[in-house]
């Protein structure tokens, strides 16, 4: 049996690989900066939160969103890589949807940005397709036995966004105030939206 090569510190590997690619004209610092800024500042769960808040306040939009997620999300200007075909899953008092990618880390970038650590962790990916109620409990979401759980494994280019339930007591909230309540975790289905 041959031994595996020595583990190279990932930060050092990235620096070494980047420096070789830059030297070969295949990568440049400006491109790196543009990508990083985009996903740090412009593309993230604040986009999905706008979609959810609009669906909560505009019944026509909600209907379009559930019928054709890609088009309705595109109405708000959110499109791009990892959002080619969007399906929106509506949570109700009776049905709770939760999304995973067991094979990699597929995630709806245009509305949620890049996936958080827990979503990419083998513990989440391995367990939520086998014991979702227990996993949700560990995350702090204790669903009643009368709530049906539906798990969605994103194994093709279809990307899923959960439309969480609008919390009670928010009847007077504006669309912008509602968007401030909506969290990334609720749009993946591992949390509910609550009023602080």
């Amino acid at each position, binding site marked *: 049996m041959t031994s*595996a090569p020595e*583990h*190279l*510190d*990932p*930060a*050092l*590997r*990235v*620096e*070494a*690989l*980047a*420096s*070789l*690619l830059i030297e*070969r004209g295949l*990568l440049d610092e400006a*491109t*790196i900066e543009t*990508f*990083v800024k985009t*996903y*740090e500042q412009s593309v993230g769960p604040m986009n999905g939160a706008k979609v959810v808040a609009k669906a909560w306040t505009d019944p026509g939009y909600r209907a379009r969103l559930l019928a054709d997620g890609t088009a309705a999300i595109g109405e708000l200007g959110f499109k791009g890589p990892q959002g*080619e*075909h969007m*399906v929106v899953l509506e949570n109700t008092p009776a049905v709770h949807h939760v999304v995973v990618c*067991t*094979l*990699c*880390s597929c995630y709806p970038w245009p509305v949620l940005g*890049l996936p*958080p*650590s*827990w979503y*990419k*962790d083998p*513990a989440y990916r*391995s*367990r939520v*397709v*086998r*014991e*979702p*109620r227990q*996993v949700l409990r*560990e995350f702090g979401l204790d669903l009643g036995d009368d709530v*049906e*759980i*539906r*798990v*969605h*494994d994103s*194994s*093709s*280019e*279809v990307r899923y966004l959960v439309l969480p339930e609008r919390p009670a007591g928010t009847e007077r909230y504006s669309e912008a105030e509602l968007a401030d309540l909506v969290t990334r*975790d609720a749009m993946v289905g*591992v*949390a509910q939206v609550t009023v602080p």
Partner: protein
Amino acid sequence: MDGIHDVGGMQGFGHVPPLTAAPPFAEPWEGKAFVIGALAARISGTNLHAFRHGIERVPPPEYLAGYWNRWTIGAQTIMADSGIVTEEEVRARAARLSGRDVPEPPPPTPHKPQMASGGAGNLRVLDTPPAFTVGDRVRAADLHPTGHTKLPRYVRGRAGTVTALQPSQVFPDTAAHFAGENPQHCYTVEFDSTELWGPGAEPFRLSIDLFEPYLEPAE
């Protein structure tokens, strides 16, 4: 391939990590790693499916040594396949960046794969009719390809119901190996938890999107 990436249903990974509102990159090198991966298919003249397969081929100890680690090694793997860069070069450069005066090996000769593309993205229009329709009972085939596939182990051999037809798409199993886009019909198939995990399973239903070559009629 039956690799470390196919974790659905595996046991032993422990508690799920805490939910946090952390920014996408904890440190600057993670942002750089992301960009290298995001551009890996373009730089290597390959595609998204080849990149995913590159990550799948990362040896298990490295795969489990952090997300951006496997992401970067996966990106480097497909670049190495296309003759863009070698592991020896990366190790030598890493040593030099660490202040060790080691010689750098010569760069490889690029040899990017050539595969015709039917256009941008992965959705395609098929003029052949789908074999299944909503409500059909289907069984996931018991396939064990050595290459890339989007048929996870935990559904193989299990019977479920088609609940939706999704857009036809480039077939990852051939595209990842530059054997053609070979677009396929794609179905959302719903499985009962007891079909997947036995009679003692938590009650729930699981949906997964499966390409037509993965499916057979059930019963």
